[in-house]
Every structure is written in structure tokens, then in C-alpha cells.
């Protein structure tokens, strides 16, 4: 495993972790822009643009893009978060030149009006799909509430209204301003020659426009807020609680990850034994969300509506106890061991390394290998977690409840199942 870095003359950072023993090579462009970097009039544009990137360039039609990626058997995708838009592919090493050229080309898409109108429908479908999923609806509402007044409240997909109203020109402008070399990192991982990576990056990205963009970092204004959203299609009640945590670029993020793991990993944690194992709740978990400069702990509880209040009280008691007494050495050791295995296993796949390499560089201008990451975890002490809890007590400020509204439609869909005759 060997790490290389090279900065192109236009400022694009090229990073590579070369592993000659791998079967594949993965490569991706990571753009430091996402929902939090949007103004209300273009809400959802980062994610919509992520879709439009696959809709063709002056050199490749949309069908060419899909066809060529399939021809070389690429596993490829893209994703948008609050603060990053990523485009990546994994192929056999022999197809790297073809795949890389295509991936680099589509980063500057044509953005034709007609494709924009068609893809808008797909985005509206995606919004509808997530809206139908109770857990993602609840988390979305909690983010919106917890970060009210802060750009992290911006919905990644935008809203039905913002997407419908968005003109193509606004997307073109957004792309021109954000897709600039100071804002993009190219990460490569797996079985490939560094010289080839460097040469192709120079050739395919050397002409990309320079420039950068400054992200706003307003403080989050804390206030206790409880909100309730009734829905006709639910059987369970979903409760999301949030409180402050260190940012994802803060060195205390490791303690925050371990703490949330001990308190709320899915199948062996304090919340699990209090609520899930005894069959009181369907899920009860806690995660750490680390963003650029700010963070949050987010707790999620789903259970029968009649048990929700008692379960939420237990949930809060678990948080209070750990805040007061901290975690034990045994809990720390188990969390560190299991999280370390997770890092190593994920790192086995070249594609599993891209995101970590890119964000480490984007926010810290440094490289951390899998072994470095594991060492960071193993250095953590119970005292580090106690110090974290002193600064960031697990005391939910935001509580969002999504609960069933009793209507006919909400009662067990299965009982209403009906057979429909075939059309003649």
C-alpha cells in the first residue's frame, strides 16, 4: 500500500493509495459542495446536479455514458450529502483509462433544458419515495428542526416546490461556481500505476477551471424544541432526539463515535439491552453525525405508539446515566475492537477507501492509512470519553415525533388486500 499525492498546475489535488494486490481500481471526484451550501432559491440543486452529471456532455450523450460504463462492467454511482457531492466508479484495472476519461468528462455536463425537465420528474419521484419511508421522514424533520436557522437544516433533495421552481440557468450558474479545482479532490485506490493516474489526470482534468468557494460557518443557535407530525400511513411511532456533538473535523470525533457505539449501536449497546432485547422497541439507537465545524448526536426510537412515552423516558435515562458516569473500560475495548474490524474490512475493497482518503485530504490536507485509523481508535481512553461528555452532555435539545393518525387507511394494509381482475 503506497500513498501518492500530486497537485496539477490548475490546483486539482490527485490522491492515490496504490495496492498492487487488489483486483479492481476505484476512482472518484469529491466536490466540496452540498445542501448546506445552497441558498433557499436553489434548494436541492446539488443533488439534482449530481443526477444531471450523467445526462451527457458535448462529447458523450446520456446514452453513451450509461452504455460505456456498462460496456466496461463498471460499478459506478454518485451521492450527495449536506456537504459533499461525490462521483465514483470501480472497474478492472485494464478499463481504468476508459472509465476515468468518461468520469472526468461528465463532471462538466451539457445541462440541456430538455434533459433537465425530464430528470426533474425523477427527482420528484425520489422525494416521494423517501417521504413514504417513515424513518427517513422522521430523520429529515429532526435535522430541519435541530438546525433551524443553520444551513445544515437544508434538505438534501430540496422540496417538491423548490425543485419544481428551479430553472436550468440556476443550476448552470451553481455548477460554474462550485465545480472548480480548489473545491474538488480526485481520489484513486487499488491496483493501478501511479504514473498512469498522474498522466491521465493531467490530460483529462488539467484544463478544469481554477477557483474555490468559501463555505459559511454560522453557529447553531440552540433551543429546546419538540415537534409532532401525524401521518395516516403509520403503525409505529418514530421518535428522533438530537443534541450537540463535536464537528466531523474535530479530534474529539473519535471519542464521539465510540460513545455513540457504546450507547446505541444496533445489536449490542446500552439502548439495545434496555429497549430492543426485551421487545419494548423495534429499534433504539444512537449515532454521531460529524459535519464540517459542527456535529450532532442523533437518537432514533421506533415502537408501538402506546409504549412510546415510557420508552422515550427510558431512552433519556440511558443518555443521562452515561453522561453522568461515563463508559467502562470493557465497553471501550469492545467498541474499539469492533469498530477497528469494521475499518479494516471496509478497507479491503478499493472503493471502500475512496471517501476516507478524499475527506481526510479535503479537511486536514493529510493522508491516513487504514492502520493509522485503527491506531487512532486504539489510543482512545475512558478519560477521553468522559472529557467529551463534560463538553457535550447527551441531553436532547430537539425531539421530533412522527406518529400514526388513526384513520381507516392506517390500519393494516394486509387485511384490506384485494384481488384485481386482469384487464381484458
Amino acid at each position: 500500500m503506497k500513498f501518492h499525492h500530486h497537485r496539477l498546475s490548475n490546483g486539482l489535488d490527485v490522491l492515490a493509495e496504490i495496492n498492487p494486490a487488489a483486483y479492481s481500481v476505484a476512482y472518484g471526484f469529491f466536490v466540496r459542495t452540498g445542501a448546506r451550501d445552497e441558498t433557499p432559491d436553489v434548494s436541492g440543486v446539488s443533488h439534482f446536479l449530481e443526477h444531471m452529471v450523467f445526462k451527457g456532455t458535448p462529447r458523450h450523450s446520456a446514452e453513451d455514458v450509461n452504455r460505456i460504463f456498462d460496456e466496461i462492467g463498471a460499478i459506478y454511482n454518485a451521492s450527495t450529502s449536506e456537504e459533499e457531492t461525490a462521483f465514483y466508479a470501480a472497474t478492472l484495472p485494464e478499463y481504468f483509462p476508459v472509465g476515468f476519461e468518461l468520469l472526468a468528462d461528465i463532471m462538466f455536463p451539457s445541462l440541456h433544458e430538455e434533459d433537465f425537465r425530464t430528470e426533474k420528474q425523477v427527482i420528484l419521484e425520489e422525494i416521494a419515495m423517501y417521504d413514504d419511508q417513515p424513518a427517513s421522514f422522521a430523520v429529515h424533520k429532526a435535522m430541519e428542526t435541530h438546525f433551524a436557522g443553520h444551513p445544515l437544516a437544508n434538505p438534501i433533495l430540496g422540496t417538491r416546490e423548490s425543485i419544481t421552481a428551479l430553472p436550468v440557468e440556476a443550476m448552470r450558474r451553481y455548477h460554474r461556481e462550485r465545480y472548480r479545482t480548489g473545491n474538488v479532490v480526485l481520489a484513486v485506490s487499488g491496483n493501478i500505476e501511479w504514473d498512469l493516474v498522474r498522466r491521465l489526470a493531467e490530460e483529462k482534468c488539467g484544463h478544469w477551471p481554477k477557483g474555490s468557494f468559501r463555505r459559511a460557518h454560522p453557529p447553531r443557535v440552540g433551543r429546546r424544541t419538540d415537534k409532532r407530525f401525524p401521518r395516516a400511513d403509520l403503525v409505529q411511532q418514530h421518535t428522533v432526539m438530537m443534541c450537540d456533538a463535536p464537528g466531523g473535523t474535530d479530534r474529539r470525533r473519535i471519542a464521539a463515535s465510540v460513545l455513540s457505539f457504546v450507547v446505541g449501536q444496533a445489536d449490542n449497546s446500552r439502548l439495545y439491552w434496555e429497549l430492543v432485547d426485551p421487545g419494548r422497541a423495534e429499534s433504539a439507537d444512537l449515532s454521531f453525525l460529524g459535519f464540517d465545524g459542527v456535529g450532532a448526536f442523533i437518537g432514533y426510537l421506533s415502537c408501538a405508539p402506546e409504549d412510546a412515552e415510557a420508552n422515550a423516558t427510558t431512552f433519556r435515562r440511558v443518555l443521562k446515566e452515561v453522561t453522568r458516569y461515563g463508559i467502562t473500560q470493557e465497553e471501550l475495548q469492545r467498541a474499539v475492537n469492533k469498530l477497528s474490524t469494521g475499518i479494516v474490512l471496509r478497507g479491503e475493497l478499493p472503493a471502500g477507501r475512496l471517501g476516507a482518503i478524499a475527506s481526510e485530504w479535503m479537511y486536514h490536507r493529510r493522508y491516513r492509512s487504514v492502520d493509522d485509523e485503527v491506531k487512532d481508535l486504539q489510543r482512545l481512553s475512558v478519560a477521553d470519553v468522559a472529557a467529551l461528555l463534560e463538553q457535550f452532555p447527551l441531553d436532547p435539545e430537539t425531539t421530533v415525533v412522527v406518529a400514526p393518525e388513526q384513520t381507516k387507511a392506517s390500519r393494516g394494509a394486509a387485511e384490506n388486500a384485494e384481488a384485481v381482475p386482469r384487464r381484458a
Partner: protein
Amino acid sequence: MIEQRIQTHRYENGLVLVVETLPETRAVACEFLIPAGSAFDPPGRNGTANLLSDMIVRGAGAYDARQLADRFDFLGVQFGTHAGTAHMWLSFATLSDRLMDVLPLCADVILRPHFPEKDFAAGKESVAQSLRAIEEDPLEKLTVELRRHALPEPWSKPSEGTLEDLPRITLDDVREHYRRHVRPAGTIVGVAGRIEFERIRDALGELLAGWSGPPEERIRARWDGPRVVHLPHASHQTHIAVAFEAVPYADPQHYDAWMVASVLGGGSSSRLFTEVRERRGLCYSVYASLVCGKGFGRIVVYTGTTADRAQETLDVMWAEFRRLGEPPDPAAGRGVSEHELRRSKARVKSAMIMQQELAGARASAIARDWSHLGRVRTADEIRRAVDAVSAESIHHYIRQHPFANPTVVTIGPEPLEVPR
């Protein structure tokens, strides 16, 4: 060509071990396929297998439930049990140097579960919770209902069980299910990673030496044909699943069926993705895949779309089913073209090579192969079989297995009219 090292061993008690050595990984993944899935749930007690997979980890050997979970975590093991229709799965992944510490715990779970009386109500309530969660998630509900209507009985029995049967199941039912079905005959252990075959063979042999049980049960499956079913749900989207009969895994035409599913809805240059999503923007997700069980196969097509566009979406999909079945005429764009077939083959072949990086995927693949074929196919064998598929052989396949009379399950605000 990939150099593969696949070795197998059948123990005296009938247990089969299948191992693929992956020298470049630090990981090891292991799957026990135990023939104790929901297909074997007693009549009126659907959910017994699921409850067994919950109860079997609530204490085993020298450990109570919590000590067991702590022990797995301490070893850094991702461990889980899960009820499927044919099998109950016990699987884990960890670093290869921990394998010998994890296997004894697996032996405890398989041979020495406690089934504590005091935890049974909790186990049952856990299962009930997850069943209620399915009721409000239209996509999960669709998956369960599609299986129920499109697959032969008993493979159609929901592996999760049902809220209706659950209250009737007793701890004795769970113990009986364990006694009858958790047995070496028919159990397959798939292991992949940086491991020595002899070492794991001997260790497992010792750990599971006392394991015995009745011979494997033969199941006679029964299917009374396709159905069209709509489930009302107060959602924005209508979810649509369509299942066509296809040849089973072991059939020589399996590769034709695989390529048909791939051309239809495998990649983003597939017919359905191009026509339904890319050209018309009707959905976010649309795909086709080949699903195989014991003695049956299905080509399953899925999409989800807002209710007022669902009928149009279904009609566009239908037009694609029809077009794929027409006699080949490349000039008119009918039948399967050499180009699209080549893309499907390329995707399959690349995916097979890249799978060598994933111990978990390899452990699953070799165990699945053994379960269907009684042997493991090498990547090279699969590549040759895929290469042998042609536009003609696909057309021949579609003539024998036309896109007609599917099972259609929809969930959403309004039922759809299914074209004939």
C-alpha cells in the same frame, strides 16, 4: 482467468464445508446455511424459524445472551443470525487471525443454545415489532407479498412470519423446530478469506463432532399459478413488482435467463432503465433480476412511481416485455442485440473478478452454489457459460419462457389495470 482455490469436505454426520482461500485479504467471512428456514414452519405457526433465529442467540454454552454478544464484540466480529425461507443463516465476518476464536462460539450457538423461558415473551415481542415495521414500509411489504404470491408453497411463506400466526407459537414449537431442523445433514458451511483449509476443516470437525440429527427432509413444492394483487396503502408512490416464471439455478438455460434479466433491467443501459427512467423520468428506481430458489426461478421486475403516473409506468414496462420477446430483427431494434448482450456479459464478468475482494460475497456465493448444485462453480466456468449465451439462445429461451402471465403485486393508493 482468476486463480481460485476452492476446497470442500463432507463430514461423517453429513455436514459440508466449502472453503475458498483468498490470499490477498485480511478478512474471513463464514456462513452456515442450516436447512431450518420458514418453509419448515409448522402449519398455522408461520414465524417459528424467525423466532428460532432470535432465541438461538439468547444464551449458548457458557454464556448468557449479553455475554455472548459481548464476546463477539470483543473479538471484533460482525455476527448475526437470520431466518430465510430455505435456510436459517448464521454468518460472521472478522479478521482472519480471529477465526479460531469465533468458531467455538458458533458451535455453542448451534449445539448448546439455552432457549431461556424468561426471554421468550421478549423474543416474540421483538418479532412482532419487526412485523409491524414491515406493515408501514410499502417497499418491504411489497417484497413479502411478492414472495407470497409469486413463489411455490412452501417457499412463499414469509420468512419473517405473520402477525396472525405469531401469538400461537410456543417455546416448545421453537425447541421442536430446532430439534428437527438444526442438523448437520443438509447444512453447508461456506468460508472465504485468508485461511488454511486443513486448519478450519479439522477445527470444525472437532467442534461439531457430536452434532447429529435426522436426515434432510424433502419438500414437495406446489404453485397454483400467477395472481394479480393490490394492497391499498396511503403512500405517495405506488410500488410495482412483476414476476415471470424462469428456469431454476441448476437448469442449463440458467445463463440465458440471467442474461435476459440483465438486458431487461440489469444496468443503467438496460431496456427498463433507459425507457422508464432515462427517457420518461417515470421513476427513481427500476430494475430486473433473476431470483432462484430450490427448484424454481423467477425474473422479478420492480419499480416505484407516484400514484398518478403508475399506470403509465406499468404500460411502458409492458411494452418493453413485449419488445424483448419479439423475433430478432436488429435493423428494427427488435430482439436482443449483440451490443446489449455484450454489455451484460461484461458486467457479469467484471463483477465476478471484483467479488474476489469481498470475503463475504465469496462465502455466500460458494455456499449458495453448493446448496443448488452440490458443487461450486469456478469463475472460469461461469465466464465460459456466460460467453456461450447468444442472441439466438436468448430468443430460444424467451420462446420457451415467454413474458406472459406474470404475478403482479402493487401497493399504493389505487389499483392498476394490468395489461394482457
